[in-house]
């Protein structure tokens, strides 16, 4: 029996800044994972990845990351993705363009 599909978000890095970004339901990229589209079935995930792969002028290396529904939107299911959401857990100054 195939394994049940667990919900996902499409994650990537922004082409210019390298920032962690996620795909929204209206085909945009957000730096706020709670605004991302939570993909709940496998066929739809494949379609969204197809779209993401066509966005090479905006993002690098799109992939499906496990996520779960949170109170305000999708939340990372794995600690690796959680660090992508939070940034380094150790002191680091903000990027210049974020100041």
């Amino acid at each position, binding site marked *: 029996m195939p394994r049940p599909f667990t919900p996902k978000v499409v994650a990537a890095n922004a082409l*210019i800044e390298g920032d962690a970004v996620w795909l929204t339901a209206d085909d945009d990229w957000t730096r706020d994972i709670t605004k991302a589209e939570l993909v709940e079935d496998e066929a739809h995930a494949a379609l969204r990845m197809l779209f993401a792969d066509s966005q090479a002028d905006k993002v690098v*290396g799109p992939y499906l990351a496990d996520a779960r529904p949170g109170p305000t939107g999708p939340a990372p299911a794995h600690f*690796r993705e959680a660090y992508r959401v939070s940034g*380094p857990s*150790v002191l680091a100054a903000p990027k*210049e363009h974020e100041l």
Partner: protein
Amino acid sequence: MYDYNDFDRDFVARRVAQFRAQVARRIDGSLTEEEFRPLRLMNGLYLQLHAYMLRVAIPYGTLNSAQMRQLAMIAERWDRGYGHFTTRQNIQFNWPRLVDVPDILDALAEVGLHAIQTSGNTIRNVTADPFAGAAADEIADPRPVAELIRQWSTDHPEFQFLPRKFKIAVTGSPADRAVTAAHDIGLRIIERDGARHYQVLIGGGLGRAPMIGKVLHEALPEADLLPYLEAVVGTWNLLGRRDNKYKARIKITVHEQGIDRIRTLVQEEFERIRPDFPGFDRQILAQIEHHFAPPRFARKSVVAYEAARAADPVFRAWADTNLTEHRDPDHAIVTVSLKKHGAIPGDATAAQMRLLADLAKAHGHDELRITQSQNVVLPHVHKADLPAIHAVLRGAGLATANIGLASDIIACPGLDYCALATARSIPVAQGIARAIEALKIEHEVGALEIKISGCINACGHHHVGHIGILGLERGGVETYQVTLGGDAGPDAALGDRTGPGFAYDQIVPAIERLILAYLDLRAHAEERFVDAYRRLGADPFKAALYGAAEKADAA
């Protein structure tokens, strides 16, 4: 130190112009990421979890003050005001924007630095003893030969698409501060019959399937070095497993074929190509050696130094811990700790870089070095200048007296930055350093090397730490495996795994127990942690980690 000639300058300038065009074509969509990725990696540009990362080569770890100042400028202008010095004597910038990277590379080229061959399946930045040309225990300065190898391997047409990355380290001292036994090729300068030779080690490497290098040639005559190296790399280039990247490193080739067979093949290849090296390489080496002539050491009284030692216990503690014996008795080698308790190992702010550049200019013959343990060295300081230097360092949080001690920890970027990581390593290093500081036992404990990696790739050299820590994922959480008894020096050894791993919030207390147990177990105050481990074996240390009492109760 070595200055670029016109050929070097043209080559680097052309590479930057090329890369500028490639970045523009990536951004306008004419290059896909698949096409662009190998091009950016050839120029040291990685993509990490939160941003790009630019790795800049610092050949054999040597910088002058202008170069250090330029690194500070880059950190401030295009990054977040700091850089990370690595165990391979490089610096990594963690936050550059793709569009800015060509400008950064131009700024590096202005001071003779670049990021070429800091990634990819090429011969990487050649590393050397950070005390080169200064250490009292040195047989010969390893930098000229490291520079020769850099020139030979940079853009070498045959070696741009090797089976895998290839790393070379050179030491000119029997103390081996360059970790030569953990490199694809390790060269140790030795004296035989009054002439300079090299002991050649190959097949060292950590990561998956860690191995200590094996001796390929006991005493290679100096004149044969370049053809012999070319024979080694050429032999591996043909035999190396291109079918499986986990089996491609030369350590696996040596393991599969046996060192004796490799020696025979290398010797055959060497004899075949030897006539192609009629001595031009030797002329170049002779020219290079001029660039590394020792500075003119000042002659002045060391009374101020002796007086400061006697009067100021803080200065004395720092001098006892952070100075190394110089070839000139009135001078000292200063290692500046980037490991203030709780700081991120290897990180330096732009202000700290500038301050170090100023000190090198004022008191250090304009020379700086980056060490394999992620610290910065002023290699030639007159002892009379030490009190002034110490005072300046103190004002900048750079005077921590912990070189070679428990808080002088090597840590890779781990899951705070690295896309390959399975767990964090920086906060574990910070936690251990803070715990040691709180206990006030660091100087009592003495020499202890703790090394931490955030995944199996072992960039933090954990296998050769007296205490090694490897961060893994187990069951959806960060877990830390401990190895004991590793050694990164001339008698390099891999540590032994102790047993099950520790959770993130358990690893710091476990290491603390281990260190406290050692204080009880050691025969006398001079017996180092690693020596006590070798004498007693793993059991008493495992008991400290896992709790002997519980086991005994259960039995």
